[in-house]
């Protein structure tokens, strides 16, 4: 399984940097996205994660409290995380 670690600051610039990596890493196989170090997250990365979750192969996301908070705020908790991880 490929894995990708999200940076602490997940703003739009981070989304632009992560996107090509995600495209490369996913390629049909499941990917683990480690978001446990995320301290700030913006819309760009949130929607990127949604896209990754919905893509072939799928992705599991390990959240940090900040990432969970943002997901809850935006109503994306169910979309982004497995029940068991919460």
């Amino acid at each position: 399984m490929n894995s990708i670690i999200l940076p602490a600051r997940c703003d739009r610039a981070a989304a632009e940097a992560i996107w090509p990596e995600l495209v490369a890493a996913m390629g049909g196989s499941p990917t683990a996205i480690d978001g446990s170090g995320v301290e700030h997250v913006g819309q760009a990365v949130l929607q990127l994660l949604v896209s990754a979750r919905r893509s072939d192969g799928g992705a599991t996301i390990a959240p940090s409290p900040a990432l969970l908070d943002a997901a809850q705020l935006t109503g994306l908790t169910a979309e982004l995380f497995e029940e068991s991880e919460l």
Partner: protein
Amino acid sequence: MSPEEIQQIFFAECEESLAAAESGLAACQAGTQDADTVNAVFRAVHSIKGGAGAFGYVALQAYTHTFETLLSDVREGLVAIESKLVDLLLRALDTLSDHVEAAREGGDAPADAALIGEMEASMAANAGGAPEAGVEPAAEPEVSEPDTTGSDAEGSAEYELDLDALLDDLTAGFDPAPAKAAEAAAEKRWKVHLRPHSGAMRNGSEPLLMVREIASLGGECVHCDVSQVPPLDAFDPAQGYLGWTFSMPETASEDSVREIFDFIGDDCALALGEDADIPEVKIVAAAPKPAPAPVASAPVKEAKVAAPQPAAPVAAAAQPEPAPVQDAPADAAAKAAQAAPPAPPAGGQSIRIDLFKLDRLIDLVGELVIAQAMLVQRLGANGITANEELSLLETLTRDIQESAMSIRAQPISSVFSRVPRILRELASSTGKHVKLDVIGETTELDKTVIERLGEPLTHLIRNAVDHGIESAEDRIAAGKAPEGTLTLSAEHRSGRILISIADDGAGINRERVLAKAVEKGIVSAEAQLSAEEIDNLIFAPGFSTAQTVSNISGRGVGMDVVRQNVKDLGGRITIDSTPGKGTTFILTLPLTLAISDGMIVNVGDQTLVVPLASVVESLRPGDGEVQGLGSNRNMLNVRGRFIPIVSLRSALGASSGALTPDEGVLIVVDTESTGQAALLVDEIQDQRQFVIKSLATNFRPVDGVAGATILGDGRVALIVDVDGLVSNAAPGQERQAA
């Protein structure tokens, strides 16, 4: 970051805002008067005002407030856009740019009272006598709203506070039970639908901050629309795909929700009410983006990815295999970098770098180029010449060099964008209205070249309008349109940049130019000059044909300074003039000042570099083509024209080398001051790029030498200052003969 640095950023952003406003208003003038254009101008002025307030530039802030208020009226459709108004806005913008300049330099603010009065008159006249009061910058036409303040105001405030606290608990992932209780208490809730577009994420804006504000008003996310999120392959991080519906408590007014979005304007679509829905997604067509540079800050650990490519072919969506990535080896990436579009993507990401760091990088790249050449030479000496790694290294070195140079490159539009203002000022002082055509403003060239191009370009434009373009009456009499046209164009041509300034005026009056030159003693009355030579007389120091000296041009200090400036940049200027049709000035400039093309020549035991920019041709003289003149001077007959031969050996005082033309090779060079000459060298070794090292910085200025470079074998070679050398050499030779 110190306050000074932040202030620097503010002024850099002011420049950008001014340019954006200028281009927006230019579009308005050209007839594009849609909401987007007006909004762009408004936003530009608005952001200057914001910064001015933050930094305490009172005069700037007060002025921008009036300007912004007028623009706000225009945006709201309260003031109709007509040419008179656009003209006023343009003048207001010119004064705004003076204001910014004054704030930056700490000078006096420009006199703006009259203009402010004019702007206020425009709004008052059209908005029905309600200029200042109701027109706060970001005010939207308000929907009348049942007032929620009143008897229960106290209670609601308490309630809001309570809900905030509960919501914090909720978002922090604690027990949501109390929140549910609160929800039950809030009977009548209403809905807010929002969808941030790509612009809402630009320039450090973050839609989630607004979402958080909504939540702090008691809003709860009831639906997040993820249906527009595309699969990863088709994903564009710059677009906004998410949309939300929030349920708001009755205590939160529509005004308070709208207020949150005031600042962001149209970048976030908003719909209020139960019946409304989440607005449509708006995908902004992005400009072709260069490959996302594998920046050092790339925050992701993934060893497998060598060169992140945004290619993401749609076809790969069906069979997403890692193939497209592995298909991108280094040289493909290099090609992509070479083929990168000249224009920076409109919404692209950028970072500000200290110029010093950049120049250091360029220096290092120069060293790398030299080291690579040394390696090739060393290996060559040991019999290793053609090998694959070496040519790969060479390709990479060249690519790195080009990329480093391109970091310093800027589109020439930053110079061209100042031209409309110059023309406006000229129109008011000369009464000549001139139409401007600009071609190729995205052409890129070195920042230093751009910075030093402004002054000569301004001179040329003033000259073109003042002397070139005739008055409206004369134009009509000559059967031309009353309004003159000035065409600015820029293009790359064989490693150099060509900038032309063309007017459709009367052309150079050669009789008058010649008469004036004779009168001033620049040429003798008997001189037989070609049309081209007469045209070039206007570059002579102290030359001016203007009947009256105006403050615009005519003092005769302009054109020779222009030529000197262009020459200092390693460029040349030529004139192409047709009587009655107009005059075109063509500037040929190097793309960069750090690296140049040159001819490597030998003189005795010395190796010298002759800049290719001045080389016309090289030849070995045939029988009878060299004629003696006086005691020790030789002239070369080049197709019927005689030009002086300058021996580099004597000019530079070398101890050995060719003294007579039949011992060596002649290089015909063009000089700005003394016409053509032929340089005599022993042999021509090579023609290649060289890295320019300043002698003035590292040693001291030397006559006849423009700088130095380091050769592949590590030796220093002097770069010949062709102009200086030729003008010094002629009398020098005579002295030697005496």
